[in-house]
């Protein structure tokens, strides 16, 4: 049940190992790792800067994590989100969910990353050959997150 919003990079293997160390009740660990792509839309990007609202971001991330814990029987959850300037190939975000049951781990991981990719209070400044611009919120991503409001959690039934 951990949330970290940080400038520093993270170590996926070490984070998963720490989460599962000494546990024999966890059957499945689902992970989503988000990386910076060199293409955004049709445009080549050389870097991006993630700005966030310190304090509010952590609160919102802790809140969505708490929602996942209500909907699915989870043993552990972890969200790490970076901010600052990132280049293509860099790690941005990590979601880890652990449960006795693989469906609960997989579904809650998807739920959290859908939310993070659309609702988390971050703003992206992309650097391209044509200069810098702020990314606008995307409709399609919003749909992915909205889906969870309509669909009851399968694994929790």
């Amino acid at each position: 049940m951990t949330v970290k919003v940080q400038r520093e990079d993270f170590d996926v293997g070490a984070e998963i190992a720490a989460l599962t160390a000494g546990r024999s009740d966890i059957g499945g660990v689902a992970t989503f790792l988000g990386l910076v792509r060199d293409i955004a839309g049709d445009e080549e990007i050389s870097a991006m800067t993630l700005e966030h609202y310190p304090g509010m971001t952590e609160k919102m991330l802790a809140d969505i994590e708490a929602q996942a814990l209500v909907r699915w029987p989870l043993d552990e959850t972890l969200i790490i989100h970076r901010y600052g300037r990132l280049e293509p190939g860099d790690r941005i975000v990590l979601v880890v969910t652990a449960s006795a049951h693989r469906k609960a781990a997989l579904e809650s991981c998807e739920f959290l990353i859908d939310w993070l990719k659309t609702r988390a209070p971050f703003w992206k400044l992309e650097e391209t050959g044509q200069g810098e611009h702020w990314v606008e919120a995307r409709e399609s991503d919003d749909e992915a997150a909205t889906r969870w409001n309509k669909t009851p959690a399968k694994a929790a039934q």
Partner: protein
Amino acid sequence: MKILYFAFLRQRTGLGEETVNAPDEIQDVAGLVEWLKTRGPGHAEALRDVSAIRVAVNQEFAGMDTAIAANDEIAFFPPVTGG
């Protein structure tokens, strides 16, 4: 009260954060926005199109009609793009 600006609002106001004493008659976010616009051309430009702006009062999403008080932290930012 403490005002925060993010993303293009931070760039246009030239400020990440400022502490202001708004007049007593300003009771909600809409009133605050109108008053902040008078603080300079950067503020006026940043806050010109309220449909492109989201607001949080004390780190909770709020609306233009949300009531505000002297010690509140009020943040203005574009719709979030996610991570």
